[in-house]
């Protein structure tokens, strides 16, 4: 066509020029259209092969009423002239070959079968022949309904179905019409359609399912995006799709909607408020429990009987009075003293014990002193923990204590001073005596007759302790009388060793024979008979020497004080018998205490809880 334009430029007349241009353009278009099917649309049945000889390139029907077939000469160039190759066809019904009813004039190498020659449900066979040589170059057999490629649908348009709440998505409804060439109404062709869409200029098309109707909805499209939509159709029960229709653009502008965000924030706010209210209610209802869990109460320091407020105020006098009356100074506390339990009891030789019991010693009922002293010495550690030196009593030392005896070389701590103080019974000894905290024993016999426990009667300003004279009398009756007295006194005291200053002052100081007689022991009935050397308290007045005078005070002078008594036995009524008479002591184990185990006469030591348990049947 471009050559022709060059060939006819000199024509000046407009009418002629226009006619020529029109015909040329028509020819141009015809060639383009004619060449189209051959080059652009290859039939699915036949694949064009330029390397071969003359062959069919395809047959197509648009509406199942007519069809066309195309062929190519291939490599054989000498057969390009029209008429060299001819097409013959044969239907199944008629067994004669007929030539192509219409060779298309405008299109090269095309055979057109019109309505009268198109039969469906019959198979056609076509031959490409060269008549002069009588050679059949190619043949093909088919039925018309198998080569139908419908025209594209027309009238594609879309409408908006709805927009999502967020304004981000929308649904569109597509509509189209069947191709006008297809006679769908008569039922000659039953078509199914396929819609495809994609985001504009994207490479991948989304395909929807086949639709037999003429409308379809697309869901979930994004707003603010342009979509390209197209549709094509095919005959149902056949596989050949037609051409696609022209694409249309589907686009919805995004509308920023505040409404969508508003409810969500409101819901959030309400939710948070609701949760907060619930929490507050929970806390208030379970306040007590939560307080205990989260803020456990700190245990405040507490002393029984003491008001913490008093401590805070800090009045010392009141505090002192309070502390003095505390339990820890009570006798029962004393009983729980640990050192009490470690006191060993000598239970292995009851006979000997009988002979050499403390009470006996104290009472001076029997025996000579030396043997006692020896027994003393044999007495091991029972209760003489810190304050008592086991080397006491050295009989020689003790002998040296006897009045008149002087100048022993030994500097026994217990007796050393006493030796010096023996001759002087006066006040002059105070200076020397002060240095030694330990009291000296008086003369042996007096000592053995003495009690092991002495009641503190007073304190000296120097820091010494004054013992009240104990009873050394052996008369049981007297003792018992005094015992009761002293028991009461004793109970006033808190266990002897722990006597407060006040109580010491309150002690009833029995009349002492004299300042010389510093030492008083509470003889006879030692409750827990033990050689307690804890502290030998000096009684009487301050002027008295803290040391005990070696001279044994005569027993009857001393008022009987017995705060401690050795428990001898437990009788049938579970009462403790304190210092029963010896005769009784002999008998008693046998008669009334039949149920009780033969109890050894105790008491070199304490009555431990174990032994108390033994007493109880």
């Amino acid at each position: 066509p471009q050559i022709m334009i060059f060939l006819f430029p000199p024509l000046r007349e407009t009418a002629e020029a226009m006619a020529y241009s029109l015909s040329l353009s028509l020819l141009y278009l015809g060639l383009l259209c004619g060449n189209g099917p051959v080059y652009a649309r290859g039939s699915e049945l036949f694949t064009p092969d330029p390397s071969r000889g003359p062959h069919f390139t395809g047959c197509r029907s648009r509406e199942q009423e007519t069809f066309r077939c195309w062929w190519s000469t291939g490599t054989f160039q000498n057969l390009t002239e029209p008429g060299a190759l001819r097409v013959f066809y044969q239907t199944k019904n008629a067994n004669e070959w007929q030539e192509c009813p219409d060779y298309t004039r405008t299109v090269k190498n095309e055979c057109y079968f019109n309505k009268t020659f198109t039969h469906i449900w019959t198979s056609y066979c076509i031959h490409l022949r060269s008549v002069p040589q009588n050679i059949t170059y190619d043949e093909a057999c088919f039925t018309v309904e198998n080569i139908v490629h419908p025209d594209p649908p027309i009238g594609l348009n879309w409408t908006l179905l709805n927009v999502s709440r967020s304004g981000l998505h929308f649904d569109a409804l597509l509509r189209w019409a069947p191709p006008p060439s297809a006679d769908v109404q008569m039922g000659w062709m039953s078509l199914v359609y396929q819609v495809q869409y994609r985001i504009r200029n994207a490479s991948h098309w989304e395909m929807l399912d086949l639709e037999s109707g003429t409308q379809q909805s697309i869901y979930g499209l994004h707003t603010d995006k342009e979509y390209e939509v197209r549709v094509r159709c095919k005959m149902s029960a056949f596989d050949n799709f037609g051409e696609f229709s022209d694409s249309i653009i589907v686009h919805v502008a995004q509308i920023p909607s505040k409404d969508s965000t508003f409810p969500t924030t409101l819901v959030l706010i309400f939710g948070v408020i609701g949760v907060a209210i619930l929490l507050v209610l929970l806390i208030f209802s379970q306040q007590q429990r939560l307080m205990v869990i989260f803020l456990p109460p700190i245990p405040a320091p507490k002393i029984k009987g003491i008001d913490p407020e008093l401590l805070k105020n800090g009045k010392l006098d009141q505090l002192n009075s309070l502390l003095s009356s505390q339990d820890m100074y009570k006798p029962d506390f004393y009983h729980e003293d640990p050192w009490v339990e470690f006191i060993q009891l000598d239970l292995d030789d009851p006979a000997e014990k009988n002979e050499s019991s403390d009470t006996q010693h104290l009472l001076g009922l029997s025996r000579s002193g030396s043997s006692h002293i020896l027994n003393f010495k044999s007495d091991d550690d029972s209760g003489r923990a810190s304050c008592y030196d086991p080397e006491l009593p050295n009989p020689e030392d003790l002998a040296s204590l006897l009045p008149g005896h002087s100048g022993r070389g030994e500097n026994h701590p217990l007796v050393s001073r006493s030796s010096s103080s023996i001759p002087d019974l006066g006040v002059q000894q105070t200076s020397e005596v002060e240095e030694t905290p330990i009291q000296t024993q008086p003369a042996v016999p007096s000592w053995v007759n003495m009690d092991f426990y002495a009641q503190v009667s007073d304190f000296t300003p120097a820091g010494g302790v004054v013992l009240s004279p104990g009873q050394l009398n052996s008369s049981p009756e007297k003792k018992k009388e005094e015992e009761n007295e002293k028991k009461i006194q004793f109970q006033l005291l808190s266990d002897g060793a722990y006597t407060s200053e006040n109580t010491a002052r309150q002690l009833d100081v029995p009349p002492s024979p004299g300042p010389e007689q510093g030492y008083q022991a509470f003889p006879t009935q030692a409750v827990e008979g033990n050689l307690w050397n804890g502290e030998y308290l000096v009684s009487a007045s301050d002027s008295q020497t803290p040391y005990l005078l070696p001279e044994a005070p005569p027993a009857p002078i001393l008022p009987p004080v017995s705060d401690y008594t050795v428990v001898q036995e437990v009788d049938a009524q579970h009462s403790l018998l304190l210092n029963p008479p010896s005769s009784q002591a002999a008998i008693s184990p046998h008669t009334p205490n039949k149920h009780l185990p033969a109890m050894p006469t105790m008491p070199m030591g304490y009555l431990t809880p174990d032994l108390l348990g033994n007493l109880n049947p």
Partner: protein
Amino acid sequence: MNRVKVLQAWLCCLSLWPCWLSHGVPLDCKDEVGSLSHCASISQEKLLDRVIQHAELIYRVSEESCTLFEEMFVPYPLHALRNQGGNMCHTKPFPIPGSKSEIQQISDKWLLHSVLMLVQSWMEPLIYLQTTLNRYDDAPDALLNKTKWVSDKLLSLEQGVVVLIRKMLDEGILTSPSIFEHTLNPYNEQSPEVLESVLRDYNLLICFKKDAHKMETFLKLLKCRQSNKLSCLSY
């Protein structure tokens, strides 16, 4: 005694009630000689729609069966046979035109009779097809189910067409079983896996698909004529 008998009669009537109901179903009503009052409840238009639906379904299922068989048993180079539309389909008593123009000139009567003839001609071959397909070793269940389904539906289609004929043409037709001679021998001794028998069955399926298309086309043309006489006539 009378009361007892009445009660028995009443019970019999009650028990037979479902049978009466089945007789009352319009489309599946059995054709009985002389009983024109049956199936009068459904309208002709609706009946035609239902018949067309049947035909469409049968056509689609036939195509699927053909595809299944082809994929399973037919060698690939021979798939082109399908496009040839079947070479040895059994001949019909009267030829059916293939061009649109000719078909448009066919009268309603001949359309209906053609459909009926087509339906009846395929009853036996489908039964034969079922037996042969069962003899295949690894025939897919879908294929067997489809062929069975198609033969069932064909029966109901026949009934519908008969009723239509009666309604539209006022003709009474006896449904005679087989008036066609079939070239097919159902008791073929040959094993089914041989290519010859495979191709024969393949051909059978292709022919059936074609005939199903014919049925559908005729019925649709008939419907078009019923609704809009002008556009469906030949031009």
